[in-house]
């Protein structure tokens, strides 16, 4: 049975047992079986969908991370598990989409599930975040559909794979679609909603939105659009690279002096979107594929982990600002350690996934002749240490303001251990990612 059908079917049937204790265990079991089937090389198996080794590898990573997220939840919080499973299924479909038609449909499906996910509103702040996500999503959908209409008008069919010989008119149509998708990746100037939404919706939802969905969209878009990107001329490539550096500089600058941790991480997510755009611009390099895949894998582990930790800290202790974090290492050394490792990885410290992925992506940039942009990206990476290290400083070197110890939760810790294992593994053993692309 295909992993997609398994996860999708379970998601559809899950509301039946959503009020029992079984759903969490069942979800883990289904994810494990799906992972096993995936390892046998099973894809969706429908027309308009195709699977490559890289996609299969990334789907495996998604299943692992989804398991960590499932472990994090104490109980099914108004269908969140159902929506998570739906998103995982939609992610697989999106990743395997081989035509514009299937891509746009699954992309929209994913957007709609994300609206439902954040609709579990508990206060006005969350409502604001959800509304912003919805409106910008709707606008982007309009742009994408407009592009799709133009593309059809230009005489191309939307149910074949994208080629590499388009006239100017259809390229404009494709650019429109591409730009519409960039909103999901929170690329400047479509980033503003993200800072609010990520910071305002509940932190575990922010983990799914900012890590899982963003990386899936990035990998799937690259997968589908790379023939078109390769056709872009130098000014357009420089345009993309400029967007990348503007996005990362903006994200890092705005994160630098934030006091609210969720907002800081939201901006850091925008900055990372900028890094992820570098391989798009570096399409001329043979390392662009692997650079993006590596960034996505590393980012998926790190970003999910930090937002889940934040969710746990907020839920158990009401921690929201940097000042609340003070002396956490004394109250719960394990949480502080897990948090610090992921932050160091986000900052790009060697032997952690964040470093290796950036190294490969930036190498692709240099290989494609974009060394000036890569230089700015490197400076950005150095700048970002400023705020990540600042969080760690609060964790370890400041006296706690509360002396109540924080009790570790088993499920959450297990999930975080999975994520930290991923961060460490892909920080040391780079070859596994390289093997996926083949050739090496």
């Amino acid at each position, binding site marked *: 049975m295909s992993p997609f059908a398994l996860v999708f079917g379970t998601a559809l049937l899950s509301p039946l047992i959503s009020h029992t204790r079984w759903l969490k265990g069942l979800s883990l079991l289904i994810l494990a079986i799906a992972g096993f089937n995936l390892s046998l090389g099973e894809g969706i198996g429908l027309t308009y969908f195709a699977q490559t080794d890289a996609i299969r590898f990334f789907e495996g990573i998604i299943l692992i991370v989804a398991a960590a997220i499932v472990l994090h939840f104490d109980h099914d919080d108004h269908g969140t598990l159902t929506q998570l499973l739906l998103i995982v299924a939609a992610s697989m479909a999106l990743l395997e989409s081989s035509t514009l038609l299937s891509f746009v449909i699954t992309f929209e499906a994913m957007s709609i599930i994300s609206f439902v996910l954040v609709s579990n509103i508990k206060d006005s702040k969350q409502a604001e975040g959800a509304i912003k996500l919805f409106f910008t999503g709707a606008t982007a959908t309009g742009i994408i559909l407009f592009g799709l209409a133009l593309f059809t008008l230009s005489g191309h069919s939307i149910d074949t794979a994208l080629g590499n010989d388009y006239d100017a008119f259809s390229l404009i149509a494709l650019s429109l679609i591409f*730009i519409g998708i960039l909103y999901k990746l929170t690329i400047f100037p479509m980033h*503003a*909603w993200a800072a609010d939404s990520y910071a305002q919706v509940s932190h575990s939802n922010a983990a799914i939105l900012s890590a899982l969905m963003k990386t899936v969209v990035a990998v799937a878009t690259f997968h589908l659009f790379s023939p078109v990107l390769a056709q872009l001329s130098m*000014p*357009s*490539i420089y345009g993309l690279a400029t967007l990348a550096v503007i996005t990362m500089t903006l994200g890092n*600058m705005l994160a630098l002096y934030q006091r609210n941790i969720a907002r800081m991480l939201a901006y850091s997510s925008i900055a990372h979107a900028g890094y992820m755009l570098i391989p798009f611009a570096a399409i001329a390099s043979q390392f662009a594929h692997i650079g993006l895949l590596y960034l996505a894998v590393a980012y998926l582990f790190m970003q999910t982990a930090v937002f889940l930790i934040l969710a746990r800290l907020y839920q158990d202790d009401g921690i929201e600002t940097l000042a609340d974090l003070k002396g956490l290492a004394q109250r719960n050394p394990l949480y502080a350690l897990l948090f610090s490792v992921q932050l160091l990885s986000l900052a790009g410290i060697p032997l952690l996934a964040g470093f290796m992925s950036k190294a490969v992506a930036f190498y692709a940039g240099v290989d494609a002749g974009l060394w000036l942009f890569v230089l700015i990206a490197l400076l950005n990476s150095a*700048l970002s240490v400023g705020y990540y290290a600042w969080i760690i400083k609060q964790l370890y070197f400041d006296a706690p303001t509360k002396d109540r110890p924080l009790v570790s939760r088993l499920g959450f810790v297990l999930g975080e251990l999975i994520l930290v294992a991923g961060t460490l593994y892909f920080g040391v053993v780079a070859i596994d990612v390289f093997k996926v692309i083949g050739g090496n």
Partner: protein
Amino acid sequence: MNNTITFLALFPFIGALLAFVLGKQQAKLAFWTAEGVSALLFLATLWLAYQYSTPISIDHTWLTFGTRSLPFGFYVDGLSIVMLLIATGLGFLDIHFAHDYMAEDKDQARYYAKVLFFIGGMILLVMAKDMIGLFVGWEFMGLASYLLISFWHSQKAPSDAGMQAFLYTRFGDMFIFAAIGLLLYFVGTLNLVEINTLAQAGGIDHSVAFIIALFIFIGAIGKSGQFPLFPWLMNAMEGPTTVSALIHGATMVNAGIYIVARLFDFYLSTEALLIVANIAAISAFIGATSALVQTEIKKVLAYSTMSHLALAFVGLGVGSLAAGMMHLVNHAVFKALLFLSAGAVILAAHHHKDLWQFGGLRGKLPFIAAFMAIGALSLSGIPPFSGFFSKDAVLTAALRNPETQGLIATLTTIAALLSIAYIGRVWLLLFSGEARDANLHQSIQRPSLFWIALPLLIMSVLTLMLGFYQSEIATFITGKTEASPHIDGLLTGLIIGLSILALIVVGLYAKDLTLVKKMAQHPFLSMLHQLLFHGYYVEAMINWFSQHAVVNGAAKASAWFDKRAIDASVNGFVPATQTAFNGLKTTQTGRIGDYIALMVAGLAVLLIVMMVGI
């Protein structure tokens, strides 16, 4: 076979983690985990040795960047297996011994975790196929050595000694790192086997090869405590004796010799071997003479380690891989025996280490006296103990090589002969004569037979047995048939020299110490004593140099630059980022209408950019 190698590479680290986690629950569990893990490692190595027929090579790439890739493979041949046997076998005995030696320590989890981590580093080093793996193992060991020397970190002396060891070896490591860079750039391969074959075929530019060989040797000097980077080894004796025995006597300090032996064909093709021989001869002499006057048991052994490692280096330096490696193997066993015997005495005497406090222990610790005597005889080079054969081979090789016949051979012979003097002095001061400190003598406890005496017994038997299998082991290591070389008259000369020295030492130290005390009053002799006692003031010279040239010179200059140029620019950058932050913050209005307007406006701009491109 491949599974065994993977097991050997990974299991120590898993074991270290286990020992730490379990040991935190219950202290005794840390010991049993370590004992079990090290026993399994030793058994795996034995299995590997039993199965071994031809060199095993496992290729693995760590990562690839374009045309450059970083390999991380394993290569196991006779040399590796012998080193593995030393590391895991002596490691196991050492851990067994530590059961009693570390029994009173509160932090056993930390101790055993670090020791297993160390063994893992050593295993990685000797199984590495490439400079990368070798360097990783090398650094792991350096870290473990630092952590274990400063194991009692709440006291000042051990933590200072750890720091010193780290800095001295780090100084050498920089050169290894530089050598890796040079190899990658000029030679294009990091594969140790390929480097050897390339060098033999003349595929490496001569001057480049010389620099690389020299750089690697500087790293080896640091790790193996050779002149002038030896003072750390003496201060490393502040660590637990079990650590000194394993790391600073039997295994880690051998890494420097191993790396030269591993790249022996490469060294043969350069002129760097002569430099190796020269440095080694000086180190052998300094070590042997300084060992004569030390007052702490472990310091004598540390200088003796330096001297004997230097003998092994001389063996390599004069062109005999077999002689050098055999001395390394023999030395590892008998030095571990001597260190652990000393440890047994120190344990029995409640951590007193000053030789002059002891005396007449023969009656109290008869087994230890016997075992230490066997170690001492082997160290002195008395047949039929193992030390005799390899020392003889090293001297023969040195005398046969026309380039090293003169000064190098002389210094080496003096160093080799002096062994009996310093180790004889230690043994006599410990075990013969009268007790000099009655209270201490009273309080001496008999150590446990199973935990303390058994490992010593095994090592003593090994020391004796190794002597009979010298050429077989040498053949196993080098892969060629090795017959013991021979020079007429050398043996007789050595025996006569040894006997004279032995008589002098017995005369001075066996019963009546008045003559020694009188000699210490003599102005010239006391000056000489001071010079030797402080290891020729090499440490003071290094300190002086680093104080004046490095700290006051280069460091101050760079501190000035750091403060005026780098810090100033960073400090100047902060207001700029703050301004940027405040400016950008205003774009984040929070109104959804603004965001969508921005999106659509951006869309227009981007489309124009795209169209320009099209």
